[in-house]
Structures are given as C-alpha cells and as structure tokens.
C-alpha cells in the first residue's frame, strides 16, 4: 500500500510549498514561480537520497534548490529579480471553493507580498525567508550564502521600512 507514503508526501508538500511559492513569486514573478517551484520539487524528489536532516533542514534545502533555480532562470533571461507581484495572480490559485473569508485572506497575502517586494532585494529576501518560508536566521543565511547576523540586519531594516510604509503619516 502506498497511500500512506503519498499522504505523507502531500502533508510535507502542503506545509512547505505555500511559503516556497510565495518566495519564488517575489523573485521571478508569479507565472514563472510555479514552474520554478515544480522544478524545485522535481529535483528534490530526485535527490532525496542525498538529504539527511530534520524538517527545518528540509525546508532550507528545498528553498536553496528553489532559489538557485530562480536565479538560473533570471540569468538565462537576462533579468533581475522581479520583486513585484501582481496581486490577483497569487489569489485564487487554490481550487475555487474559497469562502469569502478565504478570498479576503488571500488578497491580504498578495498585498503583503507586494509590499515586501518593494524592499531592496536583500531585505525582501531576508524577510520572506524568515517570515514566509519559515526559516530561522541561520538557515536563511545558508540559503542566501551569508551569515545569520547579516540576515537579521537585513530583515530588521526591511521591517523598519515596512513599518514606515504602513504608517506614512508618521
């Protein structure tokens, strides 16, 4: 019986994919993000034997694969990171049975990502990896190839900027 394995895989996928997809969306844009995420999972499934570690480590490992693929794509297209998310694109990707409340929540998500995407790239990535992908500073630093302290600084600056954007009157 393989149902149990597939259920388990599905469980992991659902835990990790949303954050990964949102992160990649900010890097390469929504349309390419799904492709990049798909390639990321394909590579991860292929290389699963190489992976040893906990769930957090898996998250970081997968995110590293995804980021490398995203940067490859950007390089091949001669593009810079998009850092701009058309909000309606992220919405409603689920399955059409969204309740009104769900839809509102998703719009909120898109808007939040769009705001984060306006940050300088290093700050946006730090915030996304920490808050959306769910990595700690050290793991995020490993994905980005920098130290935990640099991640903390970038994320802190990013949050300060977001704070100002949210309260322009101050």
């Amino acid at each position, binding site marked *: *019986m*393989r*149902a*149990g*394995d597939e*259920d*388990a*895989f*599905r*469980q*992991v*996928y*659902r*835990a990790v*994919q*949303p*954050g990964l*997809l*949102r992160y990649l969306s900010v890097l390469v844009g929504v349309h390419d993000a*799904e492709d990049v*995420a*798909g390639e990321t*999972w*394909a590579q991860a*499934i292929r290389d*699963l*034997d190489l992976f*040893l*570690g*906990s*769930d*957090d480590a*898996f998250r970081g490992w997968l995110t590293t694969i995804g980021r490398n693929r995203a940067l490859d794509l950007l390089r091949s297209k001669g593009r810079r990171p998009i850092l701009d998310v058309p909000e309606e694109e992220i919405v409603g*990707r*689920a*399955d059409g049975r*969204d309740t009104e409340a*769900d839809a509102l*929540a998703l719009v909120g*998500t898109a*808007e*939040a990502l769009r705001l*984060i995407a306006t940050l300088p790239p290093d700050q946006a990535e730090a*915030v*996304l990896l*920490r*808050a*959306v992908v*769910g990595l*700690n500073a050290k793991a995020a630093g490993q994905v980005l190839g920098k130290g935990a302290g640099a991640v*903390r*600084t970038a*994320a*802190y600056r990013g*949050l*300060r900027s*977001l*704070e100002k954007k*949210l*309260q322009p009157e101050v």
Partner: protein
Amino acid sequence: MSTRFRLTRRSADRLLDAPSADEPVAGLLRAASAPVTGELPGERTALAQFRASASLGPVVSAEGTSLMSRASRKLLAVPVAALAAAGVLVAGGGVALAASQGALHVPFTGHDNRSDEAPSAPASQNPGLSGSHGPATPGEDATHAPSGTPSPSLDGLCHAFQAGAEHGGQDNPAFAALTAAAGGADKVDAFCADRIGPSAKPTHPAKPTHPAKPTQAATPEHPSPSHATPTHPSPTKPTQAATPGTRPALPAPAVTPTKPPQAH
C-alpha cells in the same frame, strides 16, 4: 495610529519568528504567511513525480531498500518527530498512534501485513527518528532480530511505546508489529530499550528491581551520556536486553544512544 512601536533588532527577530503582536508590521507578516486552503499549485505534478520515483520501489536496491521507502521515511521523519516531541502520540491515543504507524510503517512491497516490511529495510536508513547516528550499524541490528533485520520504523514505534508507557497505552493495537518484532508483549520494553535506549523518563524510577544492572550498564569507555556513540554496548551485554520486561531502573547513561534531533 499615533502610538508607534519602536522596532529593535531583537523585537524584529521575534516578530519574524512569530508575528503575534498588534503592530501593523506583525499583521503584514501574518498576512504574508497566511495559510492556504485547498490543493496547491503543482501538488498533483509533484505527487505524480513522487509516485513515479516510488514506482522504482518494487525494484529493491542493492541495500535492500526501495527508493520510495527511503524517500518517504525522510519526509516522514518530519511530522512524526514533531508529533512525538509534542507528546501527541500519547495524548491522541489510538488515532495518533495509528497515524504514526501508518505513516512510518507502510510497506513498500505491496503487502498489507506490516510485519512483512521488517526484513526489507535496514535500520540505518531512518535519519529523522533515530538521529543522525542511527540506531546502529546493520551488523548490530542483525544480532537483535529474531527474523531478519527489523524495520527502522520500529524505532519510531519504540519512541511512541516508551512515551505511551506512562499512560498505559502499551496495549494499543498499533504496537502489534512492535510486539511481533520483540517476540512478545512482555519483551517490548527491553526490546525498545535495546534499540533506542531506555525511556527518557522512566516511569518506575524508584524501583530498582535489578540493583545490579545499573553498574553494568555504565561502560567505562563512555562515562558521559553525551558521548554515546553508535558502538552500542548492548550487543556485548545481552543480559540486560534479554531480560523480559526489564525497565532499566536508572537511565543507564552509557547505553543511551545519541538523542534524535527533536524537530521542535
């Protein structure tokens, strides 16, 4: 809003970990990480790829483990370890135990009988539950196994068993495979203690029914619990492990294998 929080590096770090405060930024972070409902994009494709890689499974690899079983066990180490860490295995009773057993114990050979899986998988393949050092080398496992090499998922069951022992959950049918592997319900305790070390929290610490044992367990070369290595002393000390129903009266430091990295 006129009241404005002054974000510090530290509070920013906390917000990123758990955006629970009332600050606007926290709300934004919550929105950015809000959960998704329904099927995710790419899920079917990824599942198909997983299935495809799994379809290689029946072709058992040289090590005797299907790709599928290794793959899923690695992924599975996640939720099960988390469950175990949170004590859900105990609190949830039969349901949680059944779930963990199902997740860990699904055979990849096409048989329904879970104990059939046991001979097909070496125990060194379960990084999540048994820790980075694994329970031991395959050779050691062979010495424990009445019928072939035990499945690594037995380690997971042992963790659940030891956790559940405090709440009288040992009779749960989910432990049938464990009981079978141990060779009897009264042998499970010793079986598990031998595999993964004694229960972290012995339920009968005040009853040294075998006063002589604790000293025996302390191997001179490994005086520190943190220094326990895969060179597991138990094969050379069969008396302790073979005693049916023996719950080590003391934590028996030297025998305790390296703790599995609890995910949370």
